[in-house]
């Protein structure tokens, strides 16, 4: 078998691969940059330390749920339970952190709840071969109900120092986001992580190639759950207390952000950097329109039109080819 052997030098591969993944999101990055500039002009405080901190704090939970949704959409799935899971994370944080478990114990509880719910959802979807949209719709009722059982009305507490650290005058949110992105890069550099793409786009081919398709998909659901409850913890820290329905809007916003970021519904299409940029764009759009004095109704209509446009433009290009 001497002719099938390793070549001596192949040159770097990792970075060129990354560069190719940027191609699809270049235009999006430009749009985001334009919105950032517009926002900076309208609201010069963005470029001060505290303005930057505040801005990233308002973006942070949306960034997390966009990632949570994108990782599922990459596997060909979707979740309608993200909002409910965010709420659950918020009420768990607000009921445990001020109690005997303390902040560390409460954070662990939030993380375990997210991983557990995600893994269970993933197991049902993947092993029982049920449609993700139905399982997660049912899940949203169950998880939302659980949140209401734990904390029937807004209350609980987050230790003040934690609220100050995460949502006060600090860049903590931005730094945490950087760490999360680095962890994601690390995950995508593992065989299981990269298998997401193959499992989402061509599950049969991936299975034949020896990819653990089911494991990759269940892991994606678990990670998605962890990101969602973590977003809940952060929202609780922002408000200083827990609210059992605070996450509701995140379900549809997470889908909107992922779609804006170029994640396809068919699985395996898009990149996490795109989803993050999509969430940033959505966050900026909301802020800019608010600043320009759009009424809430006009904001929603504009948001909807922009999302349809964002999905239609690549489609038109494809048709032209």
């Amino acid at each position, binding site marked *: 078998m001497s002719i099938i052997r390793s070549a001596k030098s192949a040159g770097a*591969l990792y970075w060129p691969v990354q560069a190719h993944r940027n191609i699809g999101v270049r235009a999006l990055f430009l749009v985001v940059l334009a919105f950032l500039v517009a926002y900076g002009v309208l609201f010069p405080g963005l470029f001060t330390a505290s303005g930057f901190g505040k801005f990233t704090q308002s973006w942070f939970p949306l960034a997390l749920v966009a990632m949570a949704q994108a990782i599922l959409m990459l596997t060909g799935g979707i979740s309608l339970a993200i909002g409910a899971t965010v709420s659950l994370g918020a009420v768990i944080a607000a009921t445990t952190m001020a109690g005997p478990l303390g902040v560390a114990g409460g954070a662990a509880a939030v993380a375990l709840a997210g991983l557990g719910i995600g893994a269970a959802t993933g197991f049902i979807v993947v092993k029982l071969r049920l449609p993700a949209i139905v399982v997660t719709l049912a899940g949203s009722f169950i998880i939302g109900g659980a949140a209401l059982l734990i904390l029937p009305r807004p209350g609980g507490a987050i230790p003040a120092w934690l609220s100050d650290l995460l949502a006060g005058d600090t860049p903590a949110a931005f730094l945490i986001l950087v760490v999360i992105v680095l962890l994601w890069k690390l995950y995508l550099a593992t065989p299981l992580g990269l298998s997401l793409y*193959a499992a989402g786009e061509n599950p*049969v081919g991936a299975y034949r190639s020896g990819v653990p398709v089911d494991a990759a998909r269940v892991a994606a659901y678990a990670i998605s759950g962890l990101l969602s409850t973590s977003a809940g913890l952060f929202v609780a820290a922002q408000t200083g207390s827990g609210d059992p329905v605070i996450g509701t809007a995140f379900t549809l916003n997470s889908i909107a952000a992922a779609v804006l970021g170029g994640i396809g519904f068919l699985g395996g299409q898009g990149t996490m950097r795109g989803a993050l940029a999509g969430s940033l764009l959505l966050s900026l759009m909301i802020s800019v329109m608010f600043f320009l004095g759009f009424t809430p109704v006009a904001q929603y209509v504009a948001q909807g039109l922009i999302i349809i446009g964002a999905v239609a433009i690549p489609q038109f290009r494809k048709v032209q080819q």
Partner: protein
Amino acid sequence: MTTVPPLLAARGVSKAFFGNPVLRGVSIALQPGRVHALLGENGAGKSTLINLLSGALRPDSGEIEVDGRAVPRMTPALARQAGIAVVQQELSLTASLSIAENIGLGAYPKRFGLIDYNELASRAKAACALVGLNEPLSTPVGRLALGRRQMVEIAKALYRKPRVLILDEPTSSLSATETKILTDLLERLRAEGIAILYISHRLNEVMALCQHVTVLKDGTCTADRSLAGTDAAGLVRLMVGRDPGDLFPKWRPSASSANAISVRGFSAGLMRDVDLDIRAGEVLGIGGLVGQGQEDLLLGLYGAIPARMASATVNGTSGLPGGVPKANALGLAYVPADRKREGLHLIHPILTNMMLPAFARLPALRLRSRRAEHETGKSLAAQLAIKGDLGRPAQALSGGNQQKVALAKWMPHDPLVLLLNDPTRGVDVETKREIYLMLRAFADAGKAVVLLSSDTPELVHLCDRVAVVREGRITATLDRAALSEEAIVSAAMGAEKQKVAA
């Protein structure tokens, strides 16, 4: 006598799907250092045999052997461990991943739990070099042309350093240069002692490359012999040559001289530059290997996919319909091959299915007359011998009766041209006979019947003329006098160039 045990072998394997036998007692032995050809018509059981050998399916009876030892429960994972690599016809690639990431998929080299991109790059590069892929390894596979993707697929198999390499029609999407690279490579791999199973419809490739051949016909092995001393014509005879029996109605001329459809320079989908006259009162067969563009020809004529042409006349009107409602108005009807998804609405009653084209023609908001529908349905059922209560869902019917419903729904509109896409696929013999009788009766009544079929005998025995499609072009039009299974298969495989003037 060979003393070395075969690297991979099947011993008397049988496999049936839903009681329908696909393989019956087939044996095959892949020896090291030999390129073994597997030949057979569409549906002869080649893909099933590959799936058994690679563990994707398990045989109902018989055994799979690796190195002469029986493996009772072959799985894809075991097959990979045993060094068996399969290059499937459908690609197993992921468009958004790079060439290297695709090649290593499922077997990435690891360092500290992470993918070792340097090692992956050097090993993928070695595999790419073998197949002449010189695109940067970081290129996403989605940007490659189909032929290049096929080469990535082959490189992916080589990356795993196989002892047994199974290639299912690897050259169907390759250019001549790429085919040459592949055949040279296979020659080298053979010299290294790898066992190769090569499935191809291109007989000249098989003759040039392979040393041994197994021929499958209707799920049984009709030949297992050395290729030395065999010619292409002999192989074709081994693949076809069955007794048509009295399945087909007696043929008598019914074609008129008037053209129902006439197109010049017609292109649609895969089809290019087709000149075709379809006469009223004839059954025109469309033959060829699966997926050469035949379906696009029918869909293009029907206006279901965009088509371009120099000129066209349909039932005296110039120009093609360009849309399904217009096609129906011009007297065209199309019966799709996939009756479960395209031909019928399975969960709805048989009667509703029969009435669908009528619904499309009635004014949108006029109230339906249940009684008239029922009358029509009953007479159609009687006419086509469709058994069963018309109120039951269409899925309750057998495949053959479903096909009759798919055909029946057009009858009230008395179409002048029937475009049929493989109407007898998966249909029992008795219903086949009924359908054949019906088609001849339509032709006798002066309708034009266009019969796209993957079943060569029915083309030979039923049709007035057969147009054979190969790589998007009509490569031969065979008149009744020139019709034979050998002639069709030869034209379909490009074994000889011939054009019998129509």
